[in-house]
């Protein structure tokens, strides 16, 4: 079979996968990880039935169910839901404020050369401050309340979002601006009809990328000074080595982050269909 081998090789690099093949290939790493955990958990409990480090799936499910459905003795809250609401609220306000700053500054920097000359180096410098290092300053200035946590998210994400939006404005081909001017557009109309509509999808992308560090800042701020929230909870129960709560919480946070990302992506595809016509998008 002289012709057989190249064909097989070609199939490896060029073959089209059916949906079911793709899904099952994608599931393999997950299944392997879960299996490895199950084996590890089983082996540890063979040695010590009271092992807390790798609790069995059933125990984690029970603990998680309890957090979700049994009111807390002290506060009477369903802790999972109150933690989730608190954290998502902080995250949402933080990202929304950062988006507002990013759009207004981004358009000004990208579209007005004078503003670009005066603000671009400043934003570039600010964006390089490791946000966690200013958390103590935020706590001192804004106290230990909600404001300092939201500010950490804003300061941690707004500068990079601003830079990427300013770049998106700069990337609008000069020809389009000229063309719009020959169609009678003034500066304000240019911003509204040519610039802003074209950066909305970039804003969604910037928010999706900003959410990654935003989660880190949220959990950090909650871990250090808070009385509720997903980050507060996992750092609280850490004292009791409560892996049966920590691991489901980590999975829950991951699921929330993933869902938010997918929702934003789906929103962009629906609202800005023109931006998703060419090429693949993640």
């Amino acid at each position, binding site marked *: 079979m002289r012709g057989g081998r190249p064909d097989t090789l070609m199939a490896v690099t060029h073959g089209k996968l059916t949906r079911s093949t793709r899904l099952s290939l994608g599931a393999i790493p997950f299944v392997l990880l879960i299996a490895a955990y199950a084996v590890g958990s089983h082996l540890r409990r063979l040695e010590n039935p009271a092992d807390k480090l790798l609790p069995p799936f059933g125990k984690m499910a029970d603990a998680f169910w309890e957090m979700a459905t049994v009111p807390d003795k002290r506060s009477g809250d369903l802790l999972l839901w109150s933690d989730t609401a608190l954290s998502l609220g902080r995250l949402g306000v933080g990202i929304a404020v950062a988006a507002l700053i990013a759009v207004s500054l981004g358009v000004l920097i990208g579209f007005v050369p004078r503003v670009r000359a005066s603000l671009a180096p400043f934003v570039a410098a600010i964006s390089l401050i490791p946000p966690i290092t200013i958390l103590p300053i935020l706590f001192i200035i804004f106290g230990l309340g909600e404001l300092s946590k939201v500010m950490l998210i804003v300061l941690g994400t707004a500068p990079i979002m601003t830079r990427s939006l300013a770049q998106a404005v700069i990337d609008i*081909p*000069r*020809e*389009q601006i*000229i*063309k*719009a*001017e*020959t*169609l*009678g*557009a*003034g500066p*304000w*109309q240019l911003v*509204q*009809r*040519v610039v802003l*509509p*074209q950066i909305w999808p970039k804003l969604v992308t910037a928010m999706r990328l900003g959410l990654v560090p935003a989660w880190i800042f949220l959990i950090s701020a909650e871990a250090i000074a808070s009385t509720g929230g997903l980050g507060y909870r996992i750092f609280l129960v850490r004292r009791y080595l409560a892996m049966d709560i920590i691991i489901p919480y980590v999975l829950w946070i991951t699921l929330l982050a993933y869902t938010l990302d997918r929702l934003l992506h789906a929103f962009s595809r629906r609202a*800005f*269909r*023109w*931006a998703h*016509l*060419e090429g693949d998008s993640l």
Partner: protein
Amino acid sequence: MSFVAVRDVAVSYDETPILERINLDIDEGAFVTVVGASGCGKSTFLRLLLSQESATRGTITLAGEPIPDRPTPDRGIVFQRYSVFPHLTVTENLILPLELARSRHFGRLFGARRKALCTEVDDILVRIGLAHASDRYPAQLSGGMQQRLAIAQALLMKPKLLLLDEPFGALDPGIRRDMHELLLALWEEIGMTVLMVTHDIAEAFKLGTRLIVFDKVRHDPDAPTAYGATITYDLPLRRPSAQRTDIATASVEAADALDQTISLLTNENRKGAPQ
């Protein structure tokens, strides 16, 4: 006073002359085609007429008035690429100039007034053969369809002067021929003045009533950038519209001969392979 008058115009970038001693008068209703080797400044000249760039020296007047220092609706433009707005559908691209004119603050109309505009451009859509594609975005159109849209959009403002910067450079030959027909028909119908920059000499002969060649007349082999380009040929092309097709065919043949002559004259051979 001629319609477009260019007087002793020169352009240099950081002391490097690009264009020098440009003098040109264009009559109203003329179709001027501009050719020349790459880098000879023909696109720079078009950008001067558009006010996208300004001359280092000299004056340009349009209908007796000095041209404004910003691009304005009295001069329409079609570029080779990026001429239509990717975030607007075909219809939205066409009503944009009307919206800009009627809504000074937002540049956008809503509801019944917007609907009225959409009906207003229906005829244009049919005329440029995009009626079936009115809800598509530019990314969903072929290159030829995009350029038809770009031309129609530019003409909506009824510009005194239509500027075309290699508008058909990226199109297939067959499509290009259709575009020529459309453009000539519109030009004859509206009677506007056109200035078109092109790489394609046959196209320049076929479409123009006047052909202009840009080239460097002075050349210093030790300092190739020492001198700018200027107008070296200015050929009136007689082309009564009734005989257009015959003459167009004849001039395509003539163009091949001239093509070779011009490329000799413009040193394209010396520089190596032309584009």
